[in-house]
C-alpha cells in the first residue's frame, strides 16, 4: 500500500516538474535564438524575489490570481469551462466600486456589503450562462465568451458620465469609494503594504478544500466531473449541479478584483487590471485544481510578472516572462496528459502481469483496487 502511494506521489510531482524544466529549456532556446544570454535572466529574476518590496508586490498580485484561479478550478472539477471569469470579476469589481462610492455605511457593514455586491454580480453573470446551459442546452464555453464581450460594453456604458462614471482627465473612473469601504493593509514599512484581503484569498482556499473534500456537495461535484452518468445513477441532479457550480464559480470570480479595489485603487478605472480571468485558467491548470497547487502556481505567475520589469534594465525584454508563462501552460497540459497516460499504461501492464501469473484469485486488496481504478 505504501509503495503504491509513493508511486502516485511521484506521478503527481513528475507532471509539473517536467513541465517547468521543459518550459525553462524552451525559454532559454528563445533567448539564445534572439542572441542573448540564456541563463542570466533567471538569476536576475531570482535576485528580484529576495527584495522585500518585490515580495510584497508578488503576494498582492498572487492574491488576485489565486481567487480567479479558484473560480476556474471549481468549474474544472466538474468539467465545466467557465471561460467567463474575466468578465465576471471585472463587472463585479465595477459594481462594488459603484456601490462603494454611493453608499456610506460603517466599515463593519460596508465591507461585507461590497463583498456581497461583488459575489452577487459575479454569480449573476455566470448564472446567465448556467441557466442557458441547463434550460436551453447552450454550451457554457460559448455563452461565457459572449458574456465577456457583453461585460465590456456594460462596463463602458456604466463609465458614461451621466450613468455612474467620473472623468479624471483622460481616465474613466467610478469616483472614489467612501473611506469606510477601504480595507487597511498590513504595513511592511519601507517595502509597502500587503492587501488586507490577502486573508480573503487564503480563507477562500481553505473553504474550497473543505467544501470539495469534506461535504456531500463537494463529493457530488467531483463525482459529476469524474463521470456524469455514474453521478446521475447515484442520485445527483446534474442540472442543479451545473447551475450551482456555475453560480459558485461566478461568485468567487466576483471576489477576484476586490483585494486591489478595496486595498489600493479604491475606484474602478481604465487602469484596473484586466485579463486576470484568462490567466486564472492557466494557473488553475498548473495547480491541478488543488488549493495548494494553485497557490504555488499563483505565486509563480506573480513572480514572473513582478520580477520581469527589472530585465529591461539589463538589456533583456521583460516580455520573455509572458512567453515563459505561455510555454509553462502548454508544457503543463501536455506533460500532465502524457504522465497520466504513462501511469495508466504502467498500471495496466502490472495488472496484466499479475493476472498472467495467476495471482488474481489469491491477490491482495491492492490488485483489486487497481483493477477498479482503471
Amino acid at each position: 500500500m505504501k509503495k503504491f502511494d509513493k508511486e502516485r506521489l511521484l506521478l503527481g510531482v513528475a507532471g509539473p516538474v517536467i513541465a517547468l524544466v521543459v518550459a525553462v529549456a524552451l525559454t532559454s532556446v528563445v533567448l539564445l535564438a534572439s542572441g542573448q544570454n540564456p541563463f542570466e535572466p533567471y538569476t536576475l529574476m531570482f535576485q528580484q524575489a529576495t527584495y522585500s518590496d518585490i515580495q510584497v508586490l508578488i503576494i498582492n498580485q498572487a492574491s488576485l490570481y489565486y481567487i480567479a484561479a479558484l473560480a476556474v478550478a471549481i468549474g474544472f472539477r466538474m468539467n465545466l469551462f467557465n471561460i467567463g471569469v474575466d468578465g465576471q470579476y471585472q463587472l463585479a469589481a465595477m459594481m462594488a466600486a459603484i456601490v462603494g462610492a454611493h453608499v456610506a455605511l460603517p466599515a463593519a457593514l460596508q465591507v461585507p456589503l461590497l463583498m456581497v455586491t461583488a459575489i452577487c454580480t459575479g454569480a449573476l453573470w455566470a448564472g446567465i450562462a448556467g441557466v442557458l446551459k441547463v434550460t436551453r442546452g447552450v454550451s457554457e464555453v460559448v455563452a461565457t465568451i459572449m458574456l465577456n464581450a457583453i461585460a465590456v460594453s456594460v462596463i463602458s456604458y456604466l463609465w458614461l458620465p451621466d450613468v455612474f462614471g467620473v472623468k479624471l482627465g483622460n481616465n474613466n473612473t467610478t469616483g472614489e469609494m467612501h473611506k469606510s469601504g477601504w480595507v487597511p493593509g498590513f504595513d511592511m514599512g519601507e517595502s509597502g503594504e500587503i492587501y488586507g484581503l490577502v486573508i480573503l484569498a487564503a480563507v477562500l482556499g481553505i473553504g474550497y478544500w473543505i467544501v470539495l473534500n469534506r461535504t456531500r456537495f463537494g463529493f457530488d461535484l467531483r463525482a459529476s466531473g469524474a463521470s456524469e452518468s455514474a453521478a446521475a445513477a447515484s442520485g445527483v441532479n446534474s442540472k442543479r449541479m451545473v447551475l450551482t457550480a456555475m453560480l459558485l464559480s461566478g461568485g468567487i470570480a466576483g471576489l477576484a478584483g476586490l483585494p486591489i479595489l478595496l486595498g489600493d485603487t479604491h475606484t474602478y478605472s481604465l487602469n484596473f487590471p484586466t485579463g486576470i480571468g484568462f490567466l486564472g485558467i492557466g494557473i488553475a491548470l498548473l495547480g491541478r485544481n488543488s488549493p495548494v497547487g494553485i497557490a504555488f502556481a499563483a505565486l509563480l505567475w506573480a513572480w514572473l510578472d513582478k520580477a520581469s520589469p527589472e530585465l529591461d534594465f539589463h538589456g533583456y525584454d521583460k516580455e520573455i516572462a509572458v512567453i515563459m508563462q505561455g510555454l509553462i501552460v502548454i508544457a503543463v497540459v501536455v506533460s500532465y496528459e502524457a504522465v497520466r497516460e504513462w501511469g495508466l499504461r504502467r498500471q495496466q501492464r502490472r495488472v496484466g502481469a499479475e493476472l498472467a501469473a495467476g495471482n488474481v484469485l489469491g491477490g491482495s486488496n491492492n490488485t483489486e483496487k487497481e483493477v477498479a481504478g482503471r
Partner: protein
Amino acid sequence: MTTATDVNQPTLQPAAPGSRRLSLPVLLLVIAGGLALTSIVRIITGADGITNVSQMSTALELAVPIGLAGLGGLWAERSGVVNIGLEGMMILGTWFGAWAGYQWGPWTGILIGVIGGAIGGLLHAIMTVTFNVNHIVSGVAINILALGATRYLSPLAFEGVPGGSAKQSPPVESLGQFTVPGLSDWLSTLNSKGWFFVSDLAGLLGGLVTDVSWLTLIAVALIPATWWILWRSPFGLRLRSCGENPIAAESLGVNVYKYKYIAVIISGGLAGLGGVFLSIVANPFYLEGQTAGRGYIGLAAMIFGNWMPGGLALGAVLFGYTDSLNLRGGSENVHALLLLGAILLAIGAIWLAVKKKYVSAVITLVIGVLVFLWYSMTNEVPSQIVSATPYVITLLVLSLSAQRLRMPKADGLPYRKGQGK
C-alpha cells in the same frame, strides 16, 4: 482532462429530427426579406445611412476577418477538433503578416501571415490529436502563448525601424483595391435616389464593388470553395467523417490523425489570413491587441451558422454590419434599427402564435412593444449598447435554437487509433 469537451452539445434531446439546413435559396430569401424590411424602416425613419454604399463597404471589410476566423473554426470542428485557439492563431497572423509585409511587400506578408497562423494550428493539432489534451485547454494555452510570443517579438523586430515601435509595426504597403468602373458609380447614384428596395439593393451591391481589396475577394471566394471541398469532394467527405464518427472512418481505412492534422493546420492558416487582413488591409500596420477578440467572434459566427459555410457568412456579415454602425458613428442609424428590431419581434410573435406557442408569442410581443416604446421615446442609442448587440443576438439565437443546431457528432471528443476495437 480527456473527457468530452462538450462545446454546445445540447444537454436536452434534440426537439425535432428534421434537418434544417440553410440551403442557398433559403439564404437568399432571408437576405431579400431582411433587405425589404430594412428598406421600409429606412423610408419611415429617414435614416438613409443604414443602407448606403460606404456603410455596406465598411460592413464587408469588418465582416471579412470574422468570417475567415469562422471558416477556420469550421474546418477544425468538421474534423472533430474544437478550436478556441483561433484568437491566438489570428494574433500570429497579424504579427507575421505585418512583419513580412513591411519588408518584402504585402503579398509576401499574406503568405507568411498564413504560415504563422498555420504554425499555431500545427501546435494545436500536436496537442489535441497526438497528446490528446483537452481541446479547450489547448486552445486557451495557445491564446496565451501567441500573445506572449508576439509581445516578445515586437520590440525585437519593430523598435528602431522608422515608423515602428515596441507595440506597432512600420507601415505595410497597400495591397491595392479595385472599384468596378461604371457599375460602382451607377449603383451609388441608384443608392442615393432613395427608392424602396431598389436603392437598398444598390447600396448592398455597391458595397461589394466599391473599393474592394483583393484579399476581400479571396476571402469571399473561400466560402463557396470551402463548401465545395468539404461537401463535394472525396477529401472533404473523409475529413467530415473524422468529425462525425472517427471509429467508422478508421474502419474504412481513413487515416484519422492525418485528416485531423490537415484540418487543424488549414484552420490555423485561415485564422492567420483573417489576422493578415487586419494588419495589412484594414490597417496598414500591426498593433498590439489588434484582433480584439475577433477569433472568439468568428467561433460564435460559425455556431450561429450551424457549422455550415453559408450560415457562417451570414453570421459574419451580421457582426460586421453592427460593428460598422458603431464605427461610422450612426447613433441615429442605430436608433432607426430599433424599429426594425421591433418589427422583427412582432413577426416572430405572429409566427409563434401560428405555431400555437402562445406563451412564447406573448413574451416576444411584449419585448417587441418595449423595443418600439424605446424607439419612440428616445432619439439616439448609446454606442455601448450597439457594440453589445451582436453578442446578445448570438446568445438569443443560441438559446432559441441550440437544440436545433447540429454540431459534428464527435466534435471535441478524444480519439485514439484502435479505440473502437
